[in-house]
Structures are given as C-alpha cells and as structure tokens.
C-alpha cells in the first residue's frame, strides 16, 4: 500500500477585519483585503433599534437565487411579528423578527416554485405576481 501525498492547495485570502476596543466607548476596526495592508473602517457601538425595513436577500432553497434585495417591512402586532412585501402582498409571521423573515422566505420560495411550474395555467393576476417575483428571484443555472 502506498501513501498518497496531496499537493498543497491555495485559496484566495478573502477579507479579514479586526475590531479593537481602545476605550470603554470606542472600538476601532481594520479591514485587510487579500494581501493589501490593513485599513481603518468605521465602527459604531450603538443602542439603536433595528429599522422596520430590510432589503431581504437570503433564501434557503438551493435551487433559487435572489437577483435584487426584496423590500420587506417588519412590524409587530401584539406577540406576532409580521414581515410584509406590500407590492406582492406576501407575508411572513413569527414570534420574533427573524422567525417572521424565515417564514417570509419559505412563503415566497413556495409561491415562486409553484407559479413557475404552473405558468401555463395561471390567470392574469397570478401571471402579474410571477412577473414581479421574477424581477427578484431566479432558478440557478
């Protein structure tokens, strides 16, 4: 039996960033791209609330890809968070902001896959919805 020696493999360095606390109220950040020297980057320590709006760009279905960030509003009604894409009239619900966004992701995935599959049989309203979805989502090549 002979030993197999793998040749060395090289991967791009990518981007590296460091955040250094200089004093109780200030952090300092540096970013290093590939082999370049580190540069200082803006860094804030805040107590702000997240805005009630996000450009949504994460989808779990490996068959799909987001082309543009989907404009999603997030609001709270009682104990429920609601993520809504008003133009498409699609919603996601959850017990926190990110559960609502996860539900939204599943909803639009299912809708897009179903409408795409049934395209030949759709009425005008759903054709319009599919056209809108195709501005933001596509199947991977």
């Amino acid at each position, binding site marked *: 039996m002979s030993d197999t020696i793998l040749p060395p493999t090289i991967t791009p360095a990518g981007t590296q960033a*460091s*955040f*250094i606390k200089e004093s109780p109220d200030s*952090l300092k950040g540096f970013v290093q*791209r590939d082999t370049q020297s580190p540069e200082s980057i*803006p860094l804030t320590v805040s107590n702000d609330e997240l805005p009630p709006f996000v450009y949504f760009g994460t989808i779990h279905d490996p068959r799909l890809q*987001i082309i543009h960030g989907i404009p999603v509003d997030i609001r709270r009604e009682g104990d429920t968070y609601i993520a809504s894409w008003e133009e498409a009239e699609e919603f996601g619900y959850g017990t926190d902001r990110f559960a609502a966004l996860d539900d939204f992701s599943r909803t639009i995935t299912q809708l897009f896959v179903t409408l795409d599959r049934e395209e030949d049989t759709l009425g005008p309203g759903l054709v319009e919805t599919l056209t809108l979805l195709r501005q933001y989502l596509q199947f991977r090549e």
Partner: protein
Amino acid sequence: MNEAPVPSVLAMLVCENIIIEAVTNKKTLVGVFNQIQNSQFPAPFGPFWIYARLADAEGDYVLRLELVHLETNKKILSASGMDVHVPNRLGPHELSLNIQRIFFELPGTYEVLLYANDVWIGRTTVSVVKKEQG
C-alpha cells in the same frame, strides 16, 4: 454599470480563533461555539471571530456587520465600510472578522447579521446565558 449580484452565504460561524496559513491562505476555525455563559451582566467577551463564506459574488460590495439583541431588537455593534471587490463569481469569497472585546448588556439571543450593499444576506446566532453562581 451592472449591479453586483446578491451573494449567497454558504456558511457563517462564530469561533474562538481562526488560524490563517501564511502561504496558502487556508483557514482553520478553532472552537466554533454558539453559547456564552457569564454570571455577571454586562458580560465582557472576547476576542472572538466571525467567519463567513460567500458564493455568487462578483463585483464591488460594501459589507456591513451588525450585532443585535434579538429580544429587544437593539443593535449593540455596527461595522460598516468593509468594501471589497470580488473578481470572479465562480470562486468563493471568505470574510474573517476579529472582534477583540465587546459587552453583552443582557442575557438572550444575539444575531450576527451580514449585509452586502444594504441587502441582508446572512445571519448566525449566539446565546448569552446567565450562569448561576454557587
């Protein structure tokens, strides 16, 4: 100018250290974790690393990282201005972010959110748990 495509996040992990091999740039993630225990709050913590591997990226991006307390929806850290250029979408792009020290004000779930050109592309979570003394 064409708009840069929205990247996909293949992996996003929080770990104690990342060893970057000098010649090959290969990265070894050490001590991947998702829970921190502390008996006192605010709880100081660090250093630690956040690693993300992106696919489908090509072109110019401004990346932003936010650390958010999920229960209160409050940001505790925002790092912006990480502008990167990815020459080829066929190759992955890796981010290795080192945070020296931060303070978790409250127990709970903290979300690490990653944005590319203001589009939210990925998240991971860390639970911060109050450890009872005794």
